[in-house]
């Protein structure tokens, strides 16, 4: 039995309450015992521009984009053309709009959608001080069968600061909206609710929580869209669990502060986006060479250069993998969905600490800034700790970069009387003395590479979906594209196809042998959100796939939709 779902979208000028309406609905859906995935879109304006939200609602966990909106509510039509790609309206959609604001745009007149006009000016006139978005909440809730009690509960919490009068007035408006239109075969009323512990969380918050769970004690960052939310989440919280956040003067400072704090013995991280990652490149190599643990979360946006700051793309992959001069082996991870942000960030902290290296987590705008009702993410122990020189250990000659069996050397933390050393970005001997000898260089290169390749990453390296029957095809993907790939494949499999999925979380070191084994004798299809097929070429270059593998690579900011992915798979298998 597949899952039930219904999708809605709302658009209007900034200040019209689009996002507020979206958050109220999201929270209410959670209260009602269901799941939903909210994505927001905004124009480039700082304040007052047009905005839109889409909500994909289900009785099972959901984090995919809907191929079309079942219901769209336009508070006005100002700037809607900017979202006509992101907010999919088709002949299956029902469009409701406030006719007292604007007429239906030309582009929507002939798509065959059901059109319902409402006059909110008239409604607002009847309830003094009420707001248009409250009627919209009510109307949409009524159409999908979301219970009024669940809405009341969420507005009481969300609008607590606005006062009782505001809540009463607008809840009255919600109630009026609820019954304003004819009742439909209300979706949610027929579904079975789930009241297991669930969370209302954004991807960037999930990343922040993962950092806290991983024991991060220091963050330094420079503001950048769409990563700043992570730092804003951590700033008021980290200081209450023995940590600190520093606002750096630029990204070069941020990453160097992180390295300094980590040298001081504390797990440390920064969060940035593409342009910031570019600025950090030199210091990323320093973390690798000096074997100082450091975590960098890159919430990717459209590039190159300033690119598209507010929209998503998976195109920092090449840079995260190869952005440093010299040979700088490190770890690159990517979460697949919102809850995964918690675990992957926590794992990233642990790996950086245990392997004394740089870890880059590649999130993206879609993963970071979407908000969803998800199952609560249980606490997990990875058992990854930094190997330090213990106080009772006595060294005749302490060697910071000593060669060991697992290639990781105990690190002396400042304050320890027996472990003086100079951390260095210069190539060095095991003792840390600068050296330009070929022997020392080769020895240390091997050490830094092998500590990563010899490590057992367990099952976390990828999410693998196997079809019930022997498959003939396998989709290889990563990052936020995964949720729509998963939906596309599970739907096809339910219709008689036999397709597997590998969604890679550990991008470096790439588990090429494991991928190769899973792909053997199958049609391999690589799906990613880039123009040039960075992931495809990476897998090819590492020998994980063969040249006959096919690539579906599409740049941001448009989302790879479920039906698009299905069309690609079907054509590939024909």
């Amino acid at each position, binding site marked *: 039995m597949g899952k039930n779902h219904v999708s809605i979208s709302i658009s209007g000028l900034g200040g019209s309450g689009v996002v507020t309406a979206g958050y109220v609905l999201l*929270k209410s859906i*959670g209260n009602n015992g269901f799941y939903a995935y909210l994505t927001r879109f905004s124009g480039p304006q700082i304040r007052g521009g047009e905005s839109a939200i889409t909500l994909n609602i289900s009785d099972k966990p959901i984090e995919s984009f809907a191929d079309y909106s079942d219901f769209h509510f336009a508070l006005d039509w100002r700037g809607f053309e900017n979202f006509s790609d992101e907010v999919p309206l088709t002949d299956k959609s029902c469009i409701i709009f406030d006719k007292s604001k604007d007429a239906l745009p030309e582009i929507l007149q002939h798509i065959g959608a059901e059109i319902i006009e409402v006059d909110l000016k008239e409604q607002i006139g009847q309830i003094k001080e009420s707001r248009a978005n409250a009627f919209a909440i009510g109307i949409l809730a009524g159409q999908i069968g979301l219970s009024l009690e669940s809405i009341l509960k969420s507005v009481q919490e969300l609008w607590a600061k606005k006062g009782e009068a505001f809540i009463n007035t607008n809840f009255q408006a919600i109630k009026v909206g609820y019954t304003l239109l004819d009742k439909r075969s209300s979706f949610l009323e027929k579904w079975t609710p789930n009241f297991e*512990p*669930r*969370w*209302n*969380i954004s991807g960037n*918050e999930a990343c922040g*929580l993962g950092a*806290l*769970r991983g024991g991060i*004690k*220091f963050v*330094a960052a420079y503001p950048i869209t769409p990563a700043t939310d992570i730092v804003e989440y951590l700033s008021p*919280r980290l*200081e*209450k*669990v*023995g*940590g*600190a*956040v*520093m606002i*750096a*003067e*630029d990204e*070069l*400072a*941020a990453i*160097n*502060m992180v*390295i*300094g*704090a*980590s*040298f*001081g*013995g*504390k797990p*440390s991280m920064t969060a940035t986006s593409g342009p910031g990652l570019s600025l950090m490149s*030199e*210091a990323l190599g*320093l973390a690798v060479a*000096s074997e100082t643990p450091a975590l960098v979360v890159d919430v990717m946006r459209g590039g190159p250069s300033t690119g598209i700051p507010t929209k998503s793309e998976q195109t920092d992959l090449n840079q995260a993998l190869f952005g440093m001069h010299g040979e700088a082996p490190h770890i690159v991870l990517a979460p697949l969905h919102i809850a995964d942000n918690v675990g992957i960030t926590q794992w990233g902290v642990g790996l950086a600490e245990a392997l004394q290296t740089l870890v880059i987590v590649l999130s993206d705008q879609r993963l970071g800034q979407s908000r969803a*009702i998800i199952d*609560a993410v249980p606490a997990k122990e990875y058992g990854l700790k930094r190997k330090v020189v213990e106080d009772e250990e006595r060294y005749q000659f302490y060697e910071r970069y000593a060669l060991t069996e697992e290639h990781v050397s105990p690190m*002396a933390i*400042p*304050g*320890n*009387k027996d472990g*003086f*050393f*100079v*951390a*260095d*970005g*210069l190539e060095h001997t095991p003792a840390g*003395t*600068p050296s330009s000898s070929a022997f020392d260089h080769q020895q240390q290169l091997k050490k830094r590479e092998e500590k990563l390749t010899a490590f057992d990453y367990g099952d976390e390296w990828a999410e693998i979906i196997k079809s019930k029957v022997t498959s003939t095809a396998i989709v290889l993907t990563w990052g936020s594209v995964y949720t729509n790939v998963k939906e596309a494949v599970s739907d096809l499999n339910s219709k008689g196809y036999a397709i597997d999925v590998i969604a890679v979380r550990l991008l470096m070191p790439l588990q090429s042998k494991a991928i190769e084994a899973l792909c053997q004798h199958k049609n391999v299809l690589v799906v990613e959100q880039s123009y040039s097929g960075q992931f495809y070429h990476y897998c090819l270059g590492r020998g994980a796939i063969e040249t006959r593998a096919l690539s579906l690579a599409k740049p941001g900011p448009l989302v790879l939709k479920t039906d698009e992915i299905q069309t690609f798979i079907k054509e590939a298998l024909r």
Partner: protein
Amino acid sequence: MKNGVEQTVTPKDYLSKTHPIWCPGCGHFFILRALATALASLQIPNEDIGLISGIGCSSRIPAYLDVYGFHGLHGRALPLAQGLKAIRPDMTVIVAGGDGDGYSIGGNHFIHACRRNMNVTYLVMDNEVYGMTKGQPSPTTDPTWKSKLAPHGTDIRTFNPLQVALSSGASFVARGFAGDQKSLAQLIISAIEHKGFSLLEIKSPCVTFRPEEKEWHKKMRKLNVQPTQDFMEATKNIYESDGFDTGIFYQADIPVYQPVLSDEKTVTDFEKEFEV
């Protein structure tokens, strides 16, 4: 204390066995010794010292002391040091580097380190030249000095680090001279003891690429004014100095940035915020 006998630390206890890569006669040798003397005088345990540097001749200094050192990136010593200090306020954090490292490639960090005014000591070993890359003009090089890179001189006015430090918010601004070890050690002591960001600009002759700097010892003189905490007076004194005055130009008791760490909550408390 060892076997009940009071131990007195000496400058030697801070010096490592590694021999500096510096040229014979380099001013940096004297700064190294003055620093060891200052540390011994302050009796700071070796393990509580973080000596952070960037890249350049002077930035090699951490290896020459038995302390915790970080020889980081060109121009990035200050942020690295501030990250360390933020999370390890118990440590004595000293940054050392050259004029190119601090005033050119690290210029932005210099301004913001002054502005933050963390309790960090910054020793700039200024020889008015890029020595490691064999003699190019730096921000403090005289505009008429001719080199391969600038055959007619740079024709660009010199950078005044003391003035910039003062106006950016540093709470201790001083100049020292490598050739006057005793006064220099005393200035380093004052800089370390000062609560806040201390800039100690140290004139250090580069005998290889700027042999004319050997004559500096004839020109350097002690400042004939007392340290002041009056910003305007300090500005005037710095502005009027020809660059050969040594001493403390400014020392003020102004707010020091240091994150306050507390343990009032647990991560589980924050997880509750997400509950539906």
